[in-house]
């Protein structure tokens, strides 16, 4: 009884100073529609959980990591062999990064096919699209940090792609590499992007994204009326507790993966060594890598690689503007051509990724 009173007093004290009741009301007003697609609603929370794992393990790795061409590889080696549980922390960081990108992809496509971007959720989609790009940026910059052979060439190719862009390519290449070649200067820059610039940007956009999700609530699929009608579930605590259950499961899977398949370090980068045979970027870039591999040296009047890069740039820009392109969705009608294009993109990504590993 005494404790109850004390807690109430603390609550009142906080409420007087921070309007805690309003925050509580915001949390409590949210409900989750129940239908056969409800499972897709868990992906946003799952991504957020994996992102939290990244932040925690990333901070731990920062205590030992040294961002220079001379010491980066050795410091990761030190983390993995000398620091207690260092191998586990690094392995969880790598596995969680990959699982997070996977859930980001799933989240993006589930929102796309459920047409959850329609009015008034256009900004939620756009902020989500930027979070997707930033996730890829995290993957790209983090990949170089161990300064191993594969990462060195992946960065060489990746930054060269940026350099091909007309007009600003030269500037971008110098800006990303910190010089004309991939070197220690590139590593320092990527480190700065990975641990300062991207986290700051992602936090700002994530706050906006979560605020919008909270404000507008969960979107219902277009053909909701045909689905089995069920009462909405309160987000807090019912859905949240289910979220926590999913996160616990994910943590278990993550630790199992990190322990059974510890993330390899590979060989130290050597700028004078040729690119190793069978070189591939991380799986989420393989579809782009494979497309560039298939393109001929010349397509019409431009170089093949430039055509490929322009194609992906246009695709990413279209992705941002999806809510404004799919005009039928706002009228409550599902646009067949739009859904077909979505499935074609999924098929393209899957087939190119598969070919990337088979060929």
């Amino acid at each position, binding site marked *: 009884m005494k404790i109850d009173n004390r807690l109430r007093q603390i609550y009142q004290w906080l409420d007087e100073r921070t309007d805690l009741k309003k925050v509580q009301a915001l949390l409590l007003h949210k409900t989750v529609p129940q239908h056969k697609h409800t499972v897709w609603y868990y992906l946003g929370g799952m991504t957020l959980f994996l992102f939290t794992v990244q932040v925690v393990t990333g901070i731990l790795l920062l205590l030992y990591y040294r961002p220079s061409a001379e010491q980066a590889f050795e410091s990761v080696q030190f983390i993995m062999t000398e620091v207690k549980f260092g191998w586990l922390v690094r392995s969880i960081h790598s596995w969680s990064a990959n699982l997070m990108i996977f859930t980001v992809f799933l989240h993006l496509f589930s929102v796309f096919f459920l047409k959850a971007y329609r009015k008034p959720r256009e900004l939620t989609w756009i902020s989500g699209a930027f979070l997707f790009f930033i996730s890829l940026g995290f993957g790209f910059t983090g990949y170089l940090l161990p300064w191993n052979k594969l990462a060195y*060439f992946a960065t060489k190719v990746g930054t060269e792609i940026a350099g091909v862009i007309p007009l600003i390519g030269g500037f971008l290449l110098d800006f990303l590499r910190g010089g004309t070649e991939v070197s220690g200067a590139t590593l320092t820059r990527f480190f700065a992007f990975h641990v300062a610039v991207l986290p700051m940007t992602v936090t700002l956009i994530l706050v906006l994204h979560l605020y919008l999700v909270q404000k507008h609530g969960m979107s219902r699929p277009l053909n909701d009326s045909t689905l089995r009608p069920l009462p909405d579930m309160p987000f807090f605590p019912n859905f949240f507790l289910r979220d926590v259950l999913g996160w616990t499961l994910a943590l278990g899977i993550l630790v199992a993966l990190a322990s059974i398949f510890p993330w390899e370090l590979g060989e130290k980068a050597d*700028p004078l060594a*040729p690119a190793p045979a069978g070189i591939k970027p991380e799986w989420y870039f393989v579809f782009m890598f494979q497309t560039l591999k298939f393109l001929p040296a010349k397509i019409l009047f431009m170089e093949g690689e430039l055509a490929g890069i322009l194609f992906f740039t246009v695709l990413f820009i279209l992705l941002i503007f999806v809510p404004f392109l799919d005009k039928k969705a706002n009228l409550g009608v599902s646009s067949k051509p739009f859904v077909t294009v979505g499935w074609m993109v999924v098929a393209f990504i899957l087939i190119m990724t598969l070919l990337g590993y088979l060929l």
Partner: protein
Amino acid sequence: MGAIVYPMLRFLIPPKLPEATSSTVVAGNLDEVPPNSGKIFRFGDKAGILIRTPTGEFKAFSATCTHLSCTVQYRSDISHIWCACHNGHYDVNGKNISGPPPRPLEEFTVFVRGKEIVVAKKIA
């Protein structure tokens, strides 16, 4: 506003460092490169590739693939210069013959000085 933004933007662009002034470099010794083999060597801040063709002739090129800048290597099984990143092939004259590379490799001049193989940039 400009007084704040301009210095910040200039700070982001790395200063141009002078390129290596030497236009010649010792790429290796005669016995390091038997016929139908190749060797990567440092040329300034970039990589070069020295090859000895199956007929015994020495050739040297920039080792930077003209597609997306990976470092190429010599494959003695097919006597091609090959880029592993996107499966680009060049013949022993540095000419792009298959895969995505859009241009031939930059060629250097090779001459033998005693036991040393010296590579020099071609004068335009």
